[in-house]
């Protein structure tokens, strides 16, 4: 069995940090911070709510982002967030290292 090279862990961390930065730019969206009871929850050590998995045979990663949406439509929020994440990854030079960004809406905060 091969050891996991440190640069993979570092690359995952950098991708996760880029995603956290992108999430911070979208108003009404935040990352899930609390663990769910009874669920095996995808957490990055540095960025809760972001799970960078992989790499695959071509050295690319998949990403799952768990978010809470407040005060806006879910489709609109996910739309904006995905664009922002791809933009941020592109700016930091990681877009080619990521195959997909899955967005998981875990909660909704509504003003009633």
């Amino acid at each position: 069995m091969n050891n996991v090279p440190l640069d993979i862990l570092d690359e995952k961390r950098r991708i996760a940090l880029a995603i956290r930065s992108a999430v911070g730019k979208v108003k009404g969206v935040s990352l899930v911070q609390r663990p769910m009871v009874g669920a095996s929850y995808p957490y990055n050590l540095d960025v809760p709510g972001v799970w960078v998995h992989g790499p695959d045979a071509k050295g690319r990663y998949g990403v799952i982002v768990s978010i809470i949406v407040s005060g806006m439509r879910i489709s609109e929020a996910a739309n904006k967030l995905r664009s922002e994440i791809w933009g941020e990854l592109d700016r930091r030079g990681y877009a080619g290292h990521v195959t997909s960004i899955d967005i998981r809406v875990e909660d909704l905060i509504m003003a009633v």
Partner: protein
Amino acid sequence: MGTPQEEMKKLKSQGPGRTMIADSVVAKIASIAAREVPGVHDLGAPAARVIGGAISRITGAPMPVGVNVEVGEEEAAVDVNLIVDYGQAIPEVTDRVRQNIINQIQSMTGLRVKEVNIAVNDLFFPQQQQQQAGESEQRAA
């Protein structure tokens, strides 16, 4: 602005990746949409409300009581249990609840609502509440 389905298609063509919406999110929308309709006193059977409240306190995660949902990638199905105010026309109330749930879920999530099944579990009598309030005041005094 297109229909929710068109927007969902557009969303999916934004870049590689899927959008998944948790059951609890759709249940929350359905719960609020049902409560918005005049004539709906509350959701869930009395026993379910007690159990649901206890579970929410233990887990810390607010789970809407009286609503069950099944969410797929593009569709959702909703089951709702209602307590209706006495004197209201139940078929009219349930029709309005069904329509409001469909509208809200479709506009907020882009999911197509396949079915909304409604069960009216109880009727609420305002006199009953006044009587209970009176009894609890007597006990406290």
